[in-house]
């Protein structure tokens, strides 16, 4: 049985806690955990290898007071809407998921697909890390690994403000052309948009728990952070706030 934690925090806390859990799971001092959380206030995360100026619209983020930081995982930039997106983190022993990185993406992303099915919608996994509904991205994930442990975190957009998303993030022109569309707005969607009704955060959290129950073939008990997690996350928060970390490339 895995631990389930439901949380809400700012961008620095959220990324610090994900890294703290990755490190402490790798030291075998915490159990496999599904963490479901919200970014409050809304914020942006960028991939480990991205250059800030290529990944986000800095001017817009500053004028809109939207905070951002760099993730420990690769992949692209993400807008996390406090009122429209739930983020998941799976922190687990690699041996409990798959030693093959691509297989582990597929297994964990199937939890998102099952969650979307709870709303009566069909979704597809598009390797490496996307889940789409009718060709439009509704979820993106990124995975980081230590010796024995993986952290995969990702989004599920249920009612994201897609205008703010499109103004916050920069997508390379070539990426848009490859998708044969002209803007981020046209290549992403939300569960509410697909259903034609406003879906609540609680509905999404319930669906995600059911989805990961199927995908990971495990039950969950609702637990709490350990003292070690809280202390390490508090320390790491300073890193995620620092200019040296955020603007390292």
């Amino acid at each position, binding site marked *: 049985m895995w631990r389930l934690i439901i949380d809400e925090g700012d961008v620095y806390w959220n990324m610090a806690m994900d890294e703290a859990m990755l490190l402490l799971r790798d030291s075998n001092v915490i159990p496999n955990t599904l963490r479901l959380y919200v970014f409050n206030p809304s914020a942006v995360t960028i991939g480990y290898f991205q*250059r800030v100026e290529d990944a986000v619209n800095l001017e817009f983020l500053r004028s809109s007071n939207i905070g951002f930081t760099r993730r420990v995982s*690769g*992949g692209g*930039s993400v807008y996390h809407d406090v009122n429209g997106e739930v983020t998941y983190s799976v922190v687990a022993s690699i041996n409990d998921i798959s030693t093959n*990185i691509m297989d582990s993406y597929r297994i964990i992303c199937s939890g998102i697909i099952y969650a979307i099915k709870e709303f009566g919608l069909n979704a597809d996994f598009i390797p490496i890390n996307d889940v789409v509904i009718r060709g439009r991205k509704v979820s993106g994930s990124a*995975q980081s*690994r230590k010796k024995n442990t993986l952290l995969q975190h990702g989004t599920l957009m249920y009612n994201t403000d897609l205008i703010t998303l499109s103004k916050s993030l920069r997508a390379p022109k*070539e990426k848009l052309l*490859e998708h044969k569309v002209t803007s981020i707005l046209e290549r992403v969607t939300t569960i509410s948009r697909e259903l034609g009704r406003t879906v609540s955060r609680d509905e999404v959290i319930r669906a995600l728990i059911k989805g990961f129950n199927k995908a990971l073939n495990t039950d969950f008990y609702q637990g709490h952070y350990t003292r070690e997690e809280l202390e390490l996350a508090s320390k790491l928060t300073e890193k995620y706030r620092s200019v040296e970390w955020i603007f390292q490339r």
Partner: protein
Amino acid sequence: MDIPEVMFMKVCTSIKRVGGKTVKVDLEILNDTILKIVISGDFFLYPEEAIHEIESRLTGRKVSEVANILNEFRGSVEVLGASIDDLISIVTDAYTSCSQE
């Protein structure tokens, strides 16, 4: 009278979409020697910290040595959304598309 060697500082960039991901290489070159290199994008590379070793190993080396140096990372790093061959090709493209400063 000795004629001083002319030093050319070049700044080069190449961006490519490979395997659904974007890889960008920014190079600063002085007389064919890499002064600075940054490999960026939305790809995945495991372990992530290896990117710093790759950039560090390429710094101070000739552009002609890039393929050999990157080939040494085969087996120790796994790249998703791109490959070591892609990285070699994008660094080479960046160099050939260099603009003189």
